[in-house]
């Protein structure tokens, strides 16, 4: 079979073993695993440390770092410092938050706090404490931070402007007290501190955008704390920005010339007037000083006490002092009063003309007389009036100031004032205050009742519908918190209401003393009721 031998033999090709398709599975697995690992590692944000005073309420792996109530980081470790002086918290921030971790970034712990001053963060009783952050992308990147002791009231993200007010006393101004413009809240007090010199109190306020435009260079700030119930020679005056200001105090300001004055710069310094009325007192350029001599006690007459003409203010007392008169070997009390002639249009601004006119009035019977302005406070005022029937007198010149003649104080006027003052005390809005407080307490009671019902609901089952109720509870707790805060502010030791009440009570007490003094006096000198109080 040569033919067969001629036929070429086919090549035998040993097929190389094919790689099975099954290997796709571990390859995919490896890819998925690598991707997961890459994703996790690449999404890891920077690690930071925050130094805290203590770690109350914080838990490693659970406590969040939040900005605007959104989680931006997580506490991973909590350790005590080597010297035991503080706590070091290690936290992992989100990657996209990394560029906001700079020198200016601030951290603080938000937890439920019930201190003498206020009740805050009641909501964290439910959610647990957390660390809040006020981010800032200005400054150098930083990974180590020191937490603030107290939460800042105004964060750097808020638009607005800060101003510095100088006040004589702190009054009832606390951190968080609102700042009003036309009775609209536009900001708040962020800090109060005694000036290092001790001469005044600086009150830092923050006015939110766009209202910071309203603060002009000629703006005037005043303390509208509480109900500004002032008892002075003119009686009781109640002045208040709003009910809230009445409860917790407030700072008001105005812009007397509107938009014509340029807006005040950041950090501009203003003086804080004790009350709106002090702002309203017009300043008179022309002041003429006169001397008056009173023979009796001038107790109750102070620098600043009003000088009135038939009840209309024409000036004030500038000086009261005791003087030894060497020639007469006697003690006298010269009282210097300032009369502002512009108040009565006595002159067109010409001092000489005004002095002449006053001299003529004295010749027609103008006399100065001490009168009780306010029996409660025992304050006196200098009253000027025309007494044409009196023997003529004239302005004595020759001393430092011209002297206006005086006449003794009638006592019946004192008695008349007593009635008037008592009526005014009666009109103090004590009832409203009590009703307000009762309302707040009722509200709080309702809130607590709601909370109790919620707790019961939660415990009814293993699978309670908490998600809806939690929100409700938080709202409720927030309400409770604010209610508590109002109540607390209203009745706390330093609260305006309390301060005002205490002051009123003290004044009532001194009024009672004055009345007893009057009664004693009448007891000893009943004839005064008929003849009027004349000096003996």
């Amino acid at each position, binding site marked *: 079979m040569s033919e067969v031998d001629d036929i070429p033999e086919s090549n035998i090709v040993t097929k190389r073993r094919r790689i099975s398709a099954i290997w796709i599975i571990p390859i995919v697995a490896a890819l998925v695993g690598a991707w997961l690992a890459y994703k996790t590692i690449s999404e890891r944000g920077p690690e930071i440390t925050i130094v805290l005073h203590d770690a109350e309420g914080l838990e490693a792996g659970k406590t969040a770092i939040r900005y605007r109530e959104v989680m931006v980081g997580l506490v991973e470790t909590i350790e005590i410092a080597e010297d035991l002086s503080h706590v070091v918290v290690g936290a992992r921030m989100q990657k996209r938050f990394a560029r906001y971790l700079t020198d200016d970034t601030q951290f603080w712990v938000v937890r439920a706090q019930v201190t003498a001053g206020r009740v805050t963060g009641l909501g964290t009783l*439910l*959610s647990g404490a957390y660390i809040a952050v006020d981010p800032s992308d200005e400054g150098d990147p930083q990974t180590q931070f020191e937490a603030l002791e107290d939460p800042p009231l105004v964060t750097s993200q808020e638009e607005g402007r800060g101003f510095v007010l100088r006040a004589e006393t702190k009054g009832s101004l606390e951190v968080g007290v609102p700042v009003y413009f036309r009775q609209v809240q536009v900001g708040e007090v962020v800090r109060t501190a005694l000036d290092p010199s001790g001469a005044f109190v600086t009150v830092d306020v923050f006015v939110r955008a766009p209202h910071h435009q309203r603060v002009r260079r000629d703006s005037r700030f005043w303390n509208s704390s509480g109900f500004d119930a002032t008892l002075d020679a003119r009686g009781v005056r109640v002045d208040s920005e709003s009910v809230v200001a009445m409860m917790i105090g407030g700072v008001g300001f105005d812009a007397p010339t509107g938009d014509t004055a340029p807006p005040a710069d950041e950090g501009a310094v203003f003086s804080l007037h004790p009350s709106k009325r002090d702002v309203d007192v017009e300043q008179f350029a022309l002041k003429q000083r006169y001397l008056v001599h009173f023979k009796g006690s001038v107790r109750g007459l102070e620098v600043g006490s009003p000088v009135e003409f038939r009840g209309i203010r024409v000036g004030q007392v500038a000086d009261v002092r005791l003087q030894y008169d060497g020639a007469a070997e006697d003690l006298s009390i010269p009282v210097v009063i300032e009369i502002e002639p512009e108040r009565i249009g006595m002159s067109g601004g010409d001092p000489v003309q005004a002095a002449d006119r006053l001299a003529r009035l004295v010749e027609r019977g103008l006399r100065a007389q001490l009168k009780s302005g306010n029996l409660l406070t025992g304050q006196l005022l200098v009253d000027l009036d025309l007494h044409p029937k009196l023997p003529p007198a004239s302005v004595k010149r020759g001393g430092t100031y011209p002297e206006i003649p005086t006449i003794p104080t009638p006592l019946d006027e004192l008695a008349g004032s007593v009635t008037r003052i008592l009526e005014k005390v009666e009109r103090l809005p004590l009832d409203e205050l009590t009703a307000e407080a009762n309302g707040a307490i009722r509200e709080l009671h309702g809130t607590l009742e709601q909370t109790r019902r919620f707790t019961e609901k939660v*415990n009814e*089952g*293993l*699978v309670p519908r*908490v998600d809806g109720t*939690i929100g409700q509870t938080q709202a409720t707790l927030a309400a409770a918190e604010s209610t508590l805060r109002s109540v607390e502010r209203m009745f706390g030791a330093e609260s305006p209401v309390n301060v005002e009440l205490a002051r009123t009570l003290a004044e009532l007490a001194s009024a009672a003393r004055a009345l007893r003094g009057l009664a004693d006096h009448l007891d000893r000198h009943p004839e005064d009721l008929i003849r009027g109080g004349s000096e003996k």
Partner: protein
Amino acid sequence: MNGSAAGAGLWTCHDCHQLVVAPPGHAHAACPRCGGAVHVRKAASLQRTAALLVASAILYVPANVLPVMTFTSMGRQQSDTILSGVAHLLLHGQWPLAAIVFFASVVVPVLKLVALAFLVISVQRGSAWRPAERTRLYRITELVGRWSMVDIYVVTVLAALVQTGSVAAVEARSGAFFFGGVVVLTMIAAETFDPRLIWDRCGARRE
């Protein structure tokens, strides 16, 4: 014997199923392939299975009486046993879930105990009744038993997840451990039972 390996003087390795010629005069041998012990049947199978069944039946009592977890919320505690957990699910209208949990945690362990006890007793009494069905019952018991662990895992996940301080916290309780013990013991019991015993008896009867 009815064509069984044992009848032909051959033993089967429990692990690699290698046939081994029974060494005369010995109760057990080592498998030449995998090195495991070889017996004609699993050693003391019925006794061990029965003992484990009794032990798991005893554990079954605390497993159902003691709470498996405690749910704490707003300062109030609520303890759940396996059954009350199912009842809560029913009360909240989650009946599909309740059915799953009820089946896995109540029906399966009970059926398993009953089925294994039935198998042990029937083999002990030399019953030849439906060997194929009984073998299938054994296989199902072996297969389904593990699903009883569901409740253990639910407790584990809840205890790990629900740790939100005062809002809600779940704590695993000793009931869960006893229940886990029941599942583990019945699984071991199923393993020590030798299904070939079912056929041995019926072969003997047939002859």
